[in-house]
């Protein structure tokens, strides 16, 4: 599959794009900005992963873009769906988009379903709003949807309530509700975080299957790079309200070009390879009302130099379809490439690159 370079003018306009999108929360008299101008595009049928730690703005961005955060969230910039700006839409127009063109699923499926309404009623609501189906036709379609998301014994499940189903089944119901509007894109906000490992595998497989059948696009928001790597064509890494790196998944995992991404990968324990001591990223994420000047990651960055504190780094090309927002990008890329060349004998690029901090240390020792 081809991944157009973000920002390039391809033949087809992107399905969904954010342009200079910001989110701030009203707090007392003032506002605290939590998302600081994001540009992202999603091509038709593409799967985009958004990864980052809590508070980086990965969920807030998409919820605010669809005005799901209430009046306290103030946004600027544009949200384009098929070239039309959603921020100019009325509530009624936006309601047609939500659950229609864009389906959403969330983290805790059981609390996301209305506790006192039957599963069938909740699917039926989406069918009525977006497909105009009622009565027998709606019931037939709801049964088909439950079957599609792999729920056995669908006629009985339609009459049940969320508390009678397991978490995994409720997430399948949420997916069925999202599919009811035949969306062009599914925005999935930590869809498997609350689920057990074997259930998570089921849900990831289901989403993959549905995408294969329908060509539906996917925005997968997760803290888990493993989950993102499993489903996504392209990844955007967010830190402190900004995108710091974006690239095709294999490219980003194989040769990360931002110190934060490299830090995240080195901090992950793994099931494979030799057991080595983890290399954590020191310090903690800055709070939105106490952001450091310049690059927000600089205070935690092993490669930071004095000038990293001056001015916000912008995303710049770091390879084919690869962007990274680091002021020391050129210098570091040379360094990392030399390392990679030296280690070319190793076949697994991920493990190879994951070892980078250790190798730095070895080099220092041998020098």
């Amino acid at each position, binding site marked *: 599959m081809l991944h157009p370079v973000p920002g390039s003018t391809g033949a087809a306009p992107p399905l969904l794009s954010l342009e200079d999108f910001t989110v701030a929360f009203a707090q007392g008299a003032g506002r605290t900005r939590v998302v600081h101008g994001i540009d992202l595009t999603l091509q038709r049928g593409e799967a985009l992963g958004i990864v980052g730690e809590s508070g980086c703005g990965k969920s807030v961005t998409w919820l605010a873009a669809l005005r799901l955060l209430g009046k306290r969230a103030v946004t600027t910039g544009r949200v384009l769906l098929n070239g039309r700006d959603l921020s100019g839409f009325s509530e009624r127009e936006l309601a047609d988009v939500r659950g229609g063109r864009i389906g959403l699923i969330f983290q805790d499926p059981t609390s996301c379903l209305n506790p006192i309404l039957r599963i069938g009623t909740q699917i039926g609501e989406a069918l009525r709003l977006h497909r105009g189906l009622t009565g027998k036709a709606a019931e037939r379609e709801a049964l088909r949807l439950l079957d599609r998301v792999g729920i056995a014994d669908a006629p009985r499940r339609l009459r049940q309530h969320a508390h009678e189903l397991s978490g995994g089944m409720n997430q399948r119901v949420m997916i069925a509700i999202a599919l009811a509007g035949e969306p062009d894109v599914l925005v999935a906000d930590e869809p498997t975080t609350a689920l057990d490992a074997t259930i998570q595998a089921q849900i990831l497989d289901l989403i993959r299957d549905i995408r294969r059948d329908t060509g539906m696009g996917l925005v997968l928001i997760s*803290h888990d790079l493993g989950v993102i790597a499993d489903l996504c064509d392209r990844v955007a890494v967010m830190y402190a309200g900004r995108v710091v790196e974006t690239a095709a998944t294999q490219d980003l995992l194989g040769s990360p070009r931002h110190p934060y991404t490299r830090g995240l990968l080195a901090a992950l324990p793994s099931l494979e390879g030799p057991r080595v*001591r983890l290399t*954590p990223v020191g310090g903690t994420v800055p709070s939105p009302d106490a952001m450091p000047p310049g690059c927000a990651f600089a205070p935690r960055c092993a490669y930071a130099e004095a000038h990293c504190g001056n001015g916000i780094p912008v995303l710049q090309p770091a390879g084919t379809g690869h962007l990274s927002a680091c002021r020391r990008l050129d210098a570091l890329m040379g360094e990392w490439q030399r390392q990679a060349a030296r280690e070319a004998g190793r076949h697994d690029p991920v493990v190879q690159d994951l070892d980078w901090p250790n190798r730095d240390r070895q080099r220092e020792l041998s020098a």
Partner: protein
Amino acid sequence: MTPLLNVRDLACRYRVTGKRGETHWLHAVDGVNFTLDAGRTLGVVGESGCGKSTTAKLVLGLQPASRGRITFAGEPVSATRDSHWRAMRRRMQMVHQDPLAALDRRLTVGEQVIEPLIIHGLKGGPQTPRERALALFDAVGLRAAMFERYPHELSGGQRQRVVLARALVLDPELVVCDEPISALDVSVAAQVINLLQDLQGRFGMAYLFISHDLKVVRQIADEVAVMYLGRIVEQGAPDDLFHTPAHPYTEALVSAIPTVGQRDRKRIVLAGDPPNPVDRPAGCAFHPRCPRATAICRSEVPPLRPVAEGRLAACHLVPAVSARSAAA
């Protein structure tokens, strides 16, 4: 040498009332055996409802077992809250998932680290309680300036460090960690994992490390037990167990973990949910979801037995080795 912790045939069941008022038994833990040597780490993994957290509470004597025997440093552990229980609690501590819930928001974190010393009336040694607490602050990587802060003024990672300092202030021999890093972000989680390893190297306590995260358990444990529906289904050294799982459940669990490394790995996706512990399937509890189940799996409970050197598995399909060939 006797092990620090010896758990034999441990079971815990709850009475639950059914829809028509009839009584059922929920077997949360159903015949668990393991030992843990001083200074070592046993990881317990499994999905929610497998009984791993109940096992932790039973080991600490926080709730009574319905069957079985727990021996800690040669002495039996009971859930009767007498002086013996309190004396034993000093030597075994617990660290939870949510550090904010574990801390009292009205007290400074410093006071909370000193508190166990005062409760247990410990003044012995050359250090004052405050000096001892400050030394532990240093050990867990907290600056002394944090001593006067309140829990809500700290980050998640710092709070978990406070909880660790409080657990270690009494110099315990065993620390039971129940999902200690699940609530933490990736970069901070790595800090705490390293810290747990450093502290063990320095103070020499044993960890009973409960987690749903196989990668974290592999990182930290000397031995791993995989639980399913209240029983251990496989046990062994982490690398052996995760790289060449013997039990089909372990195999599926390992393959279910999405990793950044191997994208096109064949994944075993189990059908359905884990069964309700109230109506545990006959025979091997895993057989309804097992891709390889045969007739015997539906009728007979497989015992946990040696299947290779240092490895136990409870599966009819894995040939057992005799004790002699295992030793050879």
